[in-house]
């Protein structure tokens, strides 16, 4: 690499990277642990010890060589990163191409005052496009300022720079955090725990549905303990309550670790989000790259007026998701103020909501009807064939459960159908879907990439079509569909959208 004026002096990662980087590479060698564990369990402790020493030595040496061979230079127009142990990579990232600089600090890095810097370029190459694994925090913020001021100079005149003492757009206090954690309680986790105690309870020694478990937890003599031990039903209820408590605690802990100190501020060109208990992240969400907004809620949260706000964006959020979480739990007024900060109008004015065809329910009913027939056939067989010795009511239980599942699924779809609607609100399309997972998609028409009208073999007979919208960024597209609208309505809607699309 030639030394020229435009490129600054070479810099290395902070020497303490040897510590933080080692942690990361320790996490990355799962295969090594498996081998060592195997050796240990097969009784070859000496070999296992040699394996551990060899692995650690290898990691230390490779981390050190990586650090020795990693150099970056910050020039006037670009940043250059030279890396690689055997095959060298010389990467040059022009400042004009950098969308933003993300800063993240793990627990160890926070103690040491280091930060990981990631240059967001919007390319599809993935996460390792431009990462400086460990540099001092001040240097990281300096770099971010440099990139920002450069971008501002090239795009627009500098507006009044954001003061840190301005009130946040949105922030979570501890009470709100705990509440968000409570709503984070997942039925899936509860069901998983239940299944685990039923199948593995004996091995783990943890099965709250047995007398033995409560015998060891509660000292006998206590009236509650006596009551629990005496009644099977009470034991079962207490077991379920205990599992729910564990589920609740898990939800709260997960939320606190992720969203502690959640704070959203105005920043040049976007919103700045800071959050995290152990790993603290500081991300700027560029408004220009926002493609759509997603307001999520559930039946219970909706009842209390709580919503979650996500932004579908071309930029990647931490963890590689195409959604930026703007607010984990917010009221309507807070949602409105965040959305208006993005530059979109909210709430919708006099938008006229149009529902979808009941065919949405019928498709599911038709698709599930074979299952219903199977359930009935099974029930009939169970009635006709006499029970063998030792068989209880099980033969009727399976068809009954199947029947209930089918009816439940169709009922859920019916509830979802009642909520599913769309509206054309000026320059935006609003789509509301789901009953259990309630989503409201806010899609600006100038972000629309393509429009499909799909008709399947069955829906064609009924003159029903599904409208599918292509939107950039994000992942999964369940909310970008308007299901089951009459063919003519679908065509009319598309024409309306195309007229308004610039």
């Amino acid at each position, binding site marked *: 690499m030639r030394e020229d004026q435009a490129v600054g002096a070479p810099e290395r990662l902070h020497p303490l990277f040897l510590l933080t980087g080692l942690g990361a590479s320790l996490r990355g060698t799962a295969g090594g642990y498996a081998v060592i564990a195997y050796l240990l369990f097969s009784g070859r402790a000496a070999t296992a010890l040699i394996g551990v020493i060899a692995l650690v030595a290898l990691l230390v040496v490779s981390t050190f060589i990586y650090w020795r061979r990693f150099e970056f230079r910050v020039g006037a127009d670009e940043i250059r990163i030279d890396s690689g142990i055997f095959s060298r990579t010389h990467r040059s990232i022009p400042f004009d191409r950098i*969308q933003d600089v993300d800063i993240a600090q793990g627990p160890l890095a926070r103690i040491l005052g280091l930060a990981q810097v990631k240059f967001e370029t919007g390319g599809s190459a993935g996460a390792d496009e431009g990462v400086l694994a460990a540099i001092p925090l001040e240097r990281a913020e300096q770099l971010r300022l440099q990139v920002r001021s450069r971008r501002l100079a090239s*795009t627009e005149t500098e507006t009044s720079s954001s003061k840190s003492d301005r009130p946040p757009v949105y922030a979570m206090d501890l009470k709100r955090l705990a509440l968000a954690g409570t709503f984070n309680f997942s039925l899936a986790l509860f069901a998983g725990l239940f299944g685990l105690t039923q199948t593995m309870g004996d091995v783990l020694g943890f099965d709250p549905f047995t007398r033995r478990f409560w015998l060891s937890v509660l000292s006998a003599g206590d009236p509650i303990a006596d009551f629990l031990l005496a009644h099977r039903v009470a034991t079962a209820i207490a077991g379920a309550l205990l599992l729910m408590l564990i589920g609740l605690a898990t939800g709260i802990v997960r939320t606190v670790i992720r969203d502690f100190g959640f704070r959203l501020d105005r920043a040049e060109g976007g919103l700045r989000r800071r959050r995290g208990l152990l790993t603290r992240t500081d991300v700027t969400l*560029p408004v*220009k*790259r926002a493609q759509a907004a997603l307001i999520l809620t559930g039946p219970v949260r909706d009842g209390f007026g709580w919503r979650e706000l996500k932004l579908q964006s*071309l930029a990647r959020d931490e963890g590689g998701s*195409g959604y930026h979480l703007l607010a984990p739990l917010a009221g309507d007024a807070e949602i409105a103020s965040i959305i208006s900060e993005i530059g979109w109008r909210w709430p919708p004015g006099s938008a006229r909501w149009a529902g979808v065809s009941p065919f949405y329910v019928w498709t599911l009913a038709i698709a599930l009807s074979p299952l219903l027939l199977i359930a009935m056939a099974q029930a009939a067989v169970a009635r006709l064939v006499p029970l063998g010795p030792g068989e209880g009511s099980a033969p009727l239980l399976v068809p009954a459960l199947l029947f209930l599942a089918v009816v439940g699924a169709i009922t859920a779809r019916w509830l979802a159908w009642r909520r599913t609607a769309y509206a054309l609100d000026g320059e935006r399309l609003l789509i509301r879907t789901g009953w259990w997972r309630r989503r409201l998609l806010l899609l600006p028409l*100038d972000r*629309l*990439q*393509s*429009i*499909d*009208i*799909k*008709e*399947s*073999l069955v829906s*064609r007979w009924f003159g029903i079509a599904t409208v*599918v*919208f*292509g*939107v*950039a*960024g*994000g*992942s999964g*597209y369940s909310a*970008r569909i308007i299901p089951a609208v009459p063919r003519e309505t679908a*065509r009319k809607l*598309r*024409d309306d959208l*195309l*007229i308004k*699309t*610039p």
Partner: protein
Amino acid sequence: MDDLTGDTPPLLAVEPAYKNVLRGRQAVTWVVLWVAAAVADQLLLADTDFHGLPSIALPIIALISLTTAPQRIYSRLRYRLTERFLQVLRGWLLHTDTIVPLVRVQHLDVTRGPLDKLFGTATLVVHTAGTHNSIVTLPGLSPERAAEIRDVIREHVRTDFA
């Protein structure tokens, strides 16, 4: 559609040679399937009553499919290019009607496979930024027509996000 621009161009069919491309492509698939079925027939079904059935039944199904499907797929495939958007109607069993506004196009390909070259057709591939349906293909065009459409759309290509 009429209220969009007043005089909308009509929906156009693609080259009839596309039917041959489809036949060729399906024939290759069926031959592979037939070979697999014949091998399975000899190895697995040799001692059963069904011995020989797949080897005979499969070519019959293939023949029926080859004589009906390409014609239907071809007659369903229609496209329309206006000043603002490209519309592609396709699908025999599952009807799909796609519209891509020309300003949304990110980049364009004209591809020609071996069969395309044999029968003198080309496929236009339109890429948008969308996660869903980001690639819209229009097969069965003559190479000149594909290049012509590409040049028309190219005029509109621009990126509108930073």
